[in-house]
């Protein structure tokens, strides 16, 4: 056996072990787009609550008015759906480019592992809203999202784990400073996503 053969054998083993346990077709671009949607959503949300025509006046609306609450929920849902659709579409495209199947055991495991903290957080936030505890909604969404990322990071590129830690830290700080929810939400879902997406995009040269 030639030395070259052994090296290629070993690298093929390593490649297979990695490919069979990690879903690597996540697109950096989808992170950037999710960040952009979040920024746009935060801006719209801010406008809804604070009016924004006259910066010297007090906020023109409060979150606990049902109509405002509906508008904010609609914006949030729109951001979520847009991010998901873009993310899935770009991931399928990326997987096709790499010759990897989008729906395989690894992506299944990735989704299942993320779903547990994600749905727990989703219901928790829904309960918070129904009970009128708006102060820590932003904090809770950041923390649970961070936990979901860390849970999923075992099945994809490890960079996702660091994004998860950043989101959790941000969520905890947000819990300390209630009332600034939108600021932390914008940083966590907007700026961090764009930052992370750009890093991924250039690191893995897509």
């Amino acid at each position, binding site marked *: 056996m030639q030395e070259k053969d*052994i*090296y290629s*054998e*070993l690298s093929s083993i390593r490649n*297979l*072990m990695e490919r*069979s*346990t990690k879903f690597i077709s996540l697109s950096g671009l989808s992170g950037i787009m999710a960040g952009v949607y979040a920024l746009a959503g935060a801006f719209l949300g801010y406008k809804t609550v604070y009016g924004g025509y006259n910066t010297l006046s007090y906020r023109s609306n409060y979150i606990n008015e049902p109509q405002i609450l509906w508008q904010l929920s609609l914006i949030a849902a729109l951001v979520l759906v847009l991010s998901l659709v873009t993310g899935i579409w770009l991931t399928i495209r990326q997987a096709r480019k790499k010759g990897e199947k989008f729906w*395989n055991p690894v992506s299944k495991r990735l989704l299942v592992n993320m779903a547990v903290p994600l749905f727990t957080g989703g219901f928790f936030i829904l309960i918070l809203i129904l009970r009128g505890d708006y102060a820590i909604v932003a904090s809770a969404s950041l923390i649970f999202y961070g936990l979901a990322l860390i849970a999923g990071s075992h099945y994809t590129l490890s960079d996702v784990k660091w994004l998860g830690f950043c989101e959790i830290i941000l969520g905890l700080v947000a819990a300390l400073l209630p009332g600034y929810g939108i600021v932390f939400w914008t940083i966590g879902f907007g700026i961090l996503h764009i930052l992370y997406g750009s890093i991924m995009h250039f690191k893995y040269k897509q």
Partner: protein
Amino acid sequence: MKISLESFDKAFENRLRLQIMSVLVANDYYDFNALKELLNATDGNLASHLKALEKEEYITVNKSFIGRKPNTQYAASAKGIHAFKKHLEALENLIKQQKR
């Protein structure tokens, strides 16, 4: 050059078999169709090599049904994992020897 080949596992002489084993060692279990896609193998080829590994007791097979479709899951046995590690060590030693 003289290289001791006894530590090489005959069961892993085939490339596909070694590849199957790598996937099963890295995962708790893997099903037939997923293996087929990942390794780009044909049904018959994959099945015959899985049979060979099963005969060596390097892997365990678990057949079940999802709805009406049969679903066969494979997992590496302790014996298989041990043999796989031994084989990798042998490859490593070979590289070390040749560097000398």
